[in-house]
């Protein structure tokens, strides 16, 4: 469990004060800073101390490493949207060990087994919660399979919950909405996964994912920008073990050719794949069209077509 460091807390506090648009009574500057070390509220322009002996809302204990933080902290894990109960209920772990790490006696073990079973059963109070639990575990499963970071899972869970609240799931499959929530979350966080990739780890066909995604993004007003092919470049390039140089070149090719309107109506994955292929040729780190196509999940024909257009746009021909 990661806790914000003191420095980050201080930054957040400084941000908060400027958000409230506190004004310095002397020079009416809005540049007012909270100095947590001195416990003062100071104007950054004229140096006037507006308030002293302010309350420090941080913890009264100090910890210098993870285990110290673990032993000194008196709060539990932060709440998370990825659990149906926001992670607030108790889970009994599967290790039959006591607090000292000793194995339990067989009598205690069967008692814990019963407790665990009933705890698991009463964690969800009705079918709605059970469905939510299922949907969120699906999101978690697919996110793990795609290697998507925690923050995106949180966003995906929030999107799913919003869809649930607005009654958008009625008439659609839970898996479908969960998958499109994850797809939307990846795009929103700027690490897009293509529909093909998402469909591969999902239990619903790509067509349904696309359809559901369009529906929920329309209804929830997500207003996601079209996917930028450049966002695929680092991932594809590292999967192909290509150097930074190739990445930079591919990004440049995308920039130049998109500028000339070649991107209009073209699939961003195919566009990125062709740019990487072209860049790998230009940097003498040739990858075959087959290799690039496999990583980007497009066909070689797409790469050839986009590659021709891009090379022409770059004026290499």
């Amino acid at each position, binding site marked *: 469990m990661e806790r914000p460091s003191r420095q980050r807390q201080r930054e957040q506090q400084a941000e908060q004060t400027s958000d409230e648009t506190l004004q310095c009574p002397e020079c009416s500057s809005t540049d007012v800073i909270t100095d947590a070390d001195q416990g003062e509220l100071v104007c950054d322009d004229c140096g006037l101390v507006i308030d002293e002996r302010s309350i420090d809302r941080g913890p009264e204990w100090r910890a210098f490493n993870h285990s110290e933080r673990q032993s000194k902290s008196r709060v539990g894990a932060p709440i998370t949207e990825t659990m149906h109960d926001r992670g607030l209920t108790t889970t009994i772990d599967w290790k039959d060990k006591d607090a000292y790490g000793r194995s339990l006696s067989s009598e205690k073990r069967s008692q814990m087994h019963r407790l665990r079973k009933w705890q698991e059963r009463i964690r969800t109070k009705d079918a709605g919660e059970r469905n939510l639990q299922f949907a969120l575990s699906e999101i978690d499963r697919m996110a793990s399979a795609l290697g998507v970071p925690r923050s995106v899972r949180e966003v995906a869970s929030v999107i799913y919950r919003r869809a649930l609240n607005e009654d958008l799931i009625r008439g659609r499959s839970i898996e479908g909405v969960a998958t499109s929530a994850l797809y939307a979350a990846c795009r929103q966080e700027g690490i897009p996964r*293509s*529909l093909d990739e998402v469909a591969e780890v999902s239990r619903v066909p790509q067509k349904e994912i*696309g359809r559901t995604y*369009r529906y929920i993004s*329309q209804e929830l*007003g997500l*207003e*996601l*920008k*079209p*996917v930028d092919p450049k966002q695929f470049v680092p991932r594809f390039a590292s999967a192909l073990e290509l150097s930074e140089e190739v990445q930079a070149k591919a990004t440049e090719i995308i920039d130049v050719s*998109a500028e000339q*309107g070649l*991107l*209009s*109506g*073209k*699939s*961003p*994955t195919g566009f990125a794949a062709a740019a990487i292929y072209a860049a790998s040729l230009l940097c003498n780190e040739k990858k075959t069209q087959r290799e690039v196509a496999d990583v980007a999940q497009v066909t070689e024909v797409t790469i050839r077509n986009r590659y021709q257009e891009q090379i022409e746009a770059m004026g290499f021909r």
Partner: protein
Amino acid sequence: MSDPKDTINIENVVASTGIGQELDLQSVAMDLEGADYDPEQFPGLVYRTQNPKSAALIFRSGKIVCTGAKSTDDVHESLGIVFDKLRELQIPVDDDPEITVQNIVTSADLGRNLNLNAIAIGLGLENIEYEPEQFPGLVYRLDEPKVVALLFGSGKLVITGGKQPVDAEHAVDKIVSRLSELGLLD
């Protein structure tokens, strides 16, 4: 700059009508020359007229849908042929059943390449749908006239959902003015 309205071309007109009484499609199919009826495939009877070219879908309820015509006049003409054919089979048809145009599909050409990404952002992401992963065109839903326009990178566009031929002209006008406002037409 040539007027994009000159390039407007009606591709398809769909209209519906009805003869006000139920039909036994099986026997109509037997008697009517050149009718296709395969209830396992499609519940309606398909009758194709050659001049003007169109297809009439005749249903058991007596309702008829005419599709594939290139103009509203053609729709009336080909439905007239269908009515005459039915009268020949001793099926009573009113003198002039009401024909309502349901949909007109039009194509047009703006004559220059479009940067769909910029248009998607410029027109406001809530009015448009642009998913190049799923479909290469940009879907733009207009409120007035209430039509849907598909814009493509080549500058060609398809307008669908209109009830009158003028709807397409209004839509093209509106799209052109919106795009030039945004400076995306040069």
